[in-house]
C-alpha cells in the first residue's frame, strides 16, 4: 500500500537488510563448533591458495625476465682476422630473426670480468685467454634456437652458447607445479565448500519451523534465502582474515630479504605493492565465493523456496 513511495521502500529495504545481517550473525554463534570447523577449513585452503599464487606469479615473472634476456653468445675463433670479424657481423645482422648483434673484443670481455670478480683477474691482461664475442639477440625468444644453429654453421665460429635447455626446464617445472597445485587447491576448495554447506544445513534444520512460517505468511524467496547466503559469506570472510595477514607479512619479509640480494640481476621478484594487495583481494574474493557457493548448495537441497 506504500509501494508508490520510493523513500519508504528504501527505508524498508535497509531495515530488512539489518534484520538479515543480525540473523546471520546470530546463527554463526549458535553453530559455534561448525562455524569454527568451516572457518578453519577455509583458512587452510586460502592460505595454501595465497602461498601458491605468490610462488607461481613470481616464478612466472622470473621466467619472463629470463626469457626476455636470452642472449646468444657467439665466440669468434682466434684465427679470424679483423675483416673476417666485420664480415661475420654483417652475416649475423643479416639473418632473419636477429634483433641485434653487439661485438665485444676479448679485451672488453676481460675488463667486464675484472669489474665483476675483482682486480686479481687483471693479471690475465698479460695473456688474455678469452675470445672475441658477439652478443646476439633474437626478435622473438622462441627463435633463439634457430638463430643459434644458423650462426654455428658460419665460418670462424669457435662456439655458440645460449640458455639452451635451462629455460625449457624452468617452464616444464612451472607447468608441473601449476598442475599439481591446481589439483590440490581444487580438492581443498571442495572440502571447504562442503563444510560451509554443512554448517548452513544445520542452520536451516534448526530454523525449520521459522522458515515454514515465513513461507506460509508470504515472505519472498529471497527474504528466506538471504540470511543463509550471508552466513556463508561471513564464514568465507572470517576464513580469509588469517591467510591475508600471513601472506602480507610473509611477502614483506621475503621482499625485504631477497630484493637487495637480487639488485643488478637479470630477474626480479614482483614488487610488494600492488602485487600483494592483488593477492589479498583474490583471497578475499575466493573466501566470499566459496562461502556463498557453499550456502547455495545447501539452500538448493534443503530449502525449496
Amino acid at each position, binding site marked *: 500500500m506504500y509501494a508508490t513511495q520510493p523513500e519508504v521502500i528504501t527505508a524498508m*529495504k535497509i531495515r530488512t537488510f539489518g534484520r538479515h545481517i543480525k540473523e546471520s550473525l546470530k546463527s554463526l554463534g549458535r553453530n559455534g563448533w561448525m562455524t569454527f570447523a568451516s572457518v578453519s577449513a577455509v583458512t587452510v585452503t586460502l592460505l595454501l591458495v595465497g602461498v601458491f599464487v605468490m610462488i607461481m606469479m613470481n616464478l612466472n615473472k622470473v621466467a619472463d625476465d629470463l626469457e626476455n634476456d636470452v642472449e646468444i653468445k657467439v665466440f669468434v675463433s682466434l684465427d679470424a682476422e679483423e675483416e673476417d670479424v666485420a664480415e661475420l657481423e654483417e652475416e649475423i645482422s643479416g639473418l632473419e630473426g636477429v634483433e641485434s648483434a653487439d661485438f665485444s673484443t676479448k679485451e672488453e670481455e676481460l675488463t667486464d670480468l675484472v669489474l665483476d670478480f675483482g682486480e686479481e683477474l687483471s693479471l690475465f691482461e698479460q695473456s688474455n685467454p678469452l675470445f672475441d664475442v658477439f652478443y646476439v639477440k633474437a626478435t622473438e625468444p622462441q627463435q633463439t634456437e634457430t638463430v643459434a644453429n644458423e650462426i654455428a654453421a658460419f665460418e670462424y665460429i669457435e662456439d655458440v652458447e645460449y640458455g639452451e635447455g635451462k629455460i625449457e626446464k624452468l617452464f616444464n617445472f612451472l607447468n608441473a607445479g601449476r598442475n599439481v597445485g591446481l589439483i590440490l587447491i581444487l580438492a581443498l576448495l571442495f572440502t571447504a565448500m562442503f563444510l560451509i554447506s554443512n554448517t548452513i544445513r544445520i542452520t536451516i534444520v534448526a530454523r525449520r519451523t521459522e522458515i515454514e*512460517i515465513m513461507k*506460509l505468511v508470504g515472505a519472498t524467496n529471497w527474504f528466506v534465502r538471504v540470511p543463509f547466503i550471508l552466513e556463508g559469506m561471513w564464514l568465507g570472510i572470517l576464513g580469509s582474515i588469517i591467510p591475508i595477514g600471513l601472506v602480507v607479512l610473509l611477502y614483506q619479509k621475503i621482499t625485504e630479504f631477497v630484493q637487495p640480494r637480487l639488485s643488478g640481476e637479470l630477474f626480479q621478484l614482483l614488487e610488494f605493492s600492488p602485487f600483494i594487495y592483488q593477492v589479498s583481494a583474490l583471497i578475499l574474493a575466493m573466501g566470499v565465493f566459496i562461502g556463498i557457493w557453499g550456502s547455495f548448495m545447501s539452500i538448493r537441497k534443503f530449502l525449496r523456496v
Partner: protein
Amino acid sequence: MIQMKNVYKKYPNGIVALNGLNVEIAQGEFVYIVGPSGAGKSTFIKMMYREERPSSGQMLVDGKDIAKLKNRKVPFLRRDIGVVFQDFKLLPRLNVYENVAFALEVIEEKPQIIKERVMEVLDMVGLKHKAKMFPRELSGGEQQRVSIARSIVNTPKVMIADEPTGNLDPDTSWDIMNLFEQINSTGTTIIMATHNREIVNKLRHRVIAIEGGLIVRDAAGGDYGYED
C-alpha cells in the same frame, strides 16, 4: 473466491489424491471439509495456498491460476491467505507479540503499522494482556488463538484451517469456533477441514465431503454425516 474444474492430483509415488474435483466457493462463505483420513482433504487444503499444485485441471484462487502461478509469485498469493494448523506452529523463542508480529515483519511491513495491527488482533482474540508471555506458558487454546491472530494480522481474504480443534478440549474448541464466526462475519472466507462432528452438526455451515479424491456430498447447512 475459489474455483476448481476437473482438478486432478497424482503424487510421484502413484497415489491419486484428487480425481477430477469440481467446486466453487464464494467470498465470505464458511465451509467445512469433512471425510475419512487419506481421502484427499489435506491435498485439497494444501492446494489453496499452493503448497501442492494440480497435475491437471484448472484452479483459481482469488482469480489467480494456481497451476500456472510462478514460484516467485506464490508469496504474494499467500499474503491473501491465512493458515491455521492443528499443532499451532508457534515459534518457541518468540513471545506472543513477536509471534504475531513475525508474520508482518517477514513481508517487510512498516514498524508503526506492525505495532498497531498486532495489538488490534491480540485484542480481538482476547490475549492483549498476555502479549509478553511465551508459547510454553500458555494453554493449548490460547496458543491456537495466537496462531489465529497471526493468520489474520495481514487481513487475508481467506482463512484456511486444518483441524484447528484437533488438539483442544470441547470447551476450548467452542471458544475457537466463536472466534472463527467473528472473523467470518467481517467477510473473510473460512475453509476448515475437521473431524469434529459436534461442531459441524451444531454450528451449521456448508459441508463438503471428500472421499476417494472426489466430492461425494456438498450441502449448505449440512451435517457431519460420519459416525467417528
